C-alpha cells in the first residue's frame, strides 16, 4: 500500500470513529486537537487500524505514539 492510500484509510477511520465526516487530519494532528481523542479512543483507533490493515500490533508497537504521523509511520513499517 502506498503512503497516500494509507493516509486516506487512516483519515476515514478517524472520521468513522469520531463521527465527523468533515474531519481533516495531518501528520501533526494529536490528541490535543480532537476533543474526544483520549486514551480510550486511542485503543479504538488502533483496533480499527488492525482490522483495516490486517495487522496485530505488539506491545512495543503501541508505545509512544504521539500523533497521526507516528501512526502512519507504524502502519507503513508493518505493511512494507
Amino acid at each position, binding site marked *: 500500500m502506498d503512503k497516500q492510500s494509507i493516509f486516506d484509510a487512516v483519515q476515514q477511520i478517524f472520521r*468513522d*470513529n*469520531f463521527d465527523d465526516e468533515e474531519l481533516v487530519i495531518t501528520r501533526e494532528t494529536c490528541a490535543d486537537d480532537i476533543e474526544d481523542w483520549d486514551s480510550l479512543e486511542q485503543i*479504538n483507533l488502533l*483496533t*480499527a487500524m488492525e482490522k483495516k490493515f490486517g495487522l496485530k*500490533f505488539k*506491545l512495543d508497537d503501541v508505545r509512544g505514539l504521539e500523533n497521526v504521523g507516528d501512526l502512519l509511520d507504524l502502519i507503513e513499517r508493518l505493511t512494507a
Partner: protein
Amino acid sequence: MNCFDYPLDPAYLLQKKRSLKRQLLEKQGLIEKKVAIMSGSTIGEIKNILELFLLENGIKPTFHEGAYALFYENLVFDDGSLKAFAPDVIYIHTSVRNIKLWPDAADEPSRVEEKLNAEYTRFEQAIRAALSFGCPVIANNFDLPVYRVMGNREGVDCHGRVRFVRQLNEKLAALAEATPNLYLNDLAYLQAVHGMDAFSSQTAWYAYKYAVSIDCIPYLCQSVANIIKSLLGKNKKALALDLDNTLWGGIIGDDGPEGIVMGNETPAGMAYAEFQSYLKELSKLGILLNVCSKNEEKIALTGFERADTVLKRDDFLCFKANWEPKSRNIAAMAQEINILPESFVFVDDNPAEREIVRQELPGVTVPELGAPEEYIAAIDRSGYFEVTTLSADDKKRASMYKQNLERAQLEQSFGDYNDYLKSLEMHCEIGAFDAPHAERITQLINKTNQFNLTTRRYTAAEVEGIMADPAYITLYGRLVDKFGDNGLVTAMIGHIQGNVLDMDLWIMSCRTFKRRLEHAMFDELVRRAAAAGVEKIVGHYYPTAKNLLVRDFYATIGFEQTAQDDQGNLTFEFTGFAGYEPQCGVMEIEIV
C-alpha cells in the same frame, strides 16, 4: 438488518458507536435508568457499548463509573458517591484477573481450601455490599485462566488454577441461586463461545488492562444488557414461525408430508429436529410458539402428524397457515393473544418475507437466518428470551393463553357480555401483599405495560419495604375460572396521608382484560380505604407509549378528573364512599 442482532459485527459497533448512539437517542419512549459499573479492570469502552445495547432495548442509562480495579473498596467502603447516585442496577465487572490468592504447589489441601474460601468471601462481600443498595446486582463469574502450568491436571488437582476457578464459579452460582436480586453474567460461557485466545487477549490486558479483548466487548455488553432488559420486562414473549424450510426442509404443499425433511435420518433432518427441540424447550419456559406460514392449513397440519416430528399442533398457540400477508397474520395473532406486536420474534428462511415484516411491523424482531444448522444460534445468541426469574406462572403461561383463546370462542356464543362473564364461573382471591406472593408481584410490576396507570417499577426490596409499612394499602388479585387458573394477575399500591389515599400503582396483566376484575379490586380497595378512615382516593395516569388503554379508566369507575399537565399526566379524585355500590358483580370474591 439490525446491527444489534446475531451475528454481531464488533468492529462496526466499536467504530460507529457515536453515530449509533445519536440515532438511538432519537427513539421514542426511552426509560431512564441509573447504572453503576464497578471495575475489576478497564471499563471505559464497556460503558460506551453497554449504553448502545441498552438504548437499543429502550433503556436510556446514566452511568456511575467505579474507580479502576477498586470494585471491592468502592462497594464495601462506599464514600457516599454510590449512595448519592442511587443506582437502579449495579454491574460488577470482575474477572479471573481479580483473583489474588491462588493455590501454591506447596500448599496443604487444607490451605488451598482456606484460600478458596477467602477468595470467595471477598467477592461475596462485594456482592452483598452491592445488594445493600436495594437494586438488582449483576456480577460476572470467572473466565478460565489463559495458561495451565500442569496442563490437563490443572482441572483435577486441588492446586490447579482451572479447578480453583471452577470451584469459585460453582460457589457463585449457588450464591446467585439462593439470593434474590443477584444475577450472574456468565463470563466463562462467553469466553467459551468466542474462544479463549480471542476473548482473553494478553495484549489487551497488558497494554490497556482490559480483561476482555476489545473485539469481544460488544458480546459482553450484549449479555449484560440482556439481563437488564429482562429485569425491566423487555423480553420478547412469542415466536411467529414459518414452516417450509424453517421448521422442516422442503415445501410441504409440493413434497407432501412424507417428502419433507425432518427427523434424525439425514444431516439436514437433524438440524431441523434439533431446532424444533430448541423451540419446544423455549415453550416450556412460557415462550408462545405460533405458526405463520403461507400454506393450506389442512396440508400444513399433516407435517405435525408425522411420527418423527418433535413439535405437535398442540405446542402452538395460533396456527396461521393461509395466504394473507405475514405482517397481517402477526398483527392478528398479537391481537388474539393480547400482546403487543413488538413482543414477537419472526423466524422465516425467506429474506423477502423478513423484509416485508420489517417494513410493515417495525416493532417486530426479525433475525437473519442462514443455513438450518445456524437457526438455533440466530435466536439463542441474541438473548431475546433471557431468563432472569422463572415463576411457576411462566411455565404455565402457554396453557393460560390457550385457555384465553377458548374463552374468546365461548364469548362469541353469548349475546350479553355479562352473561358470558358469569358463565366463566370466576373466582377471585384478593389479599394484601405477603411474602409468598412477593416474587410474582415484583415480576408483574416490572413486566406490565398496558394496564399500568403509573408505570412505576419496584425492586424486590422496595416491595418488601412497602409490605411492612402500615402507611400503605396493597392488594393483589388472583383469578380462577372454569378454564383454569390465571394466577396472580393484578396488584395495586397506595399510600395514606391524613385522610387521603394516593394511588402509586395499579396494574393488571393483559390476559385478564375485560373480566371486570379491575372492578372487583376497586370494590375491595374502597372497603379497606373506608375502614382506614380514608375520605378521598387520588388516582394518577402517566402516559407511556403503551398504556393509552387506561387513560380514561379512573373516570369509568367513579373518579372525577381534577388536573392535567402539559405532559399529559392526569389526576383523578374519588370521594364516593357514602352509599358505594360494589361494581363487579360477575364473580365470587374471596378475601384473604
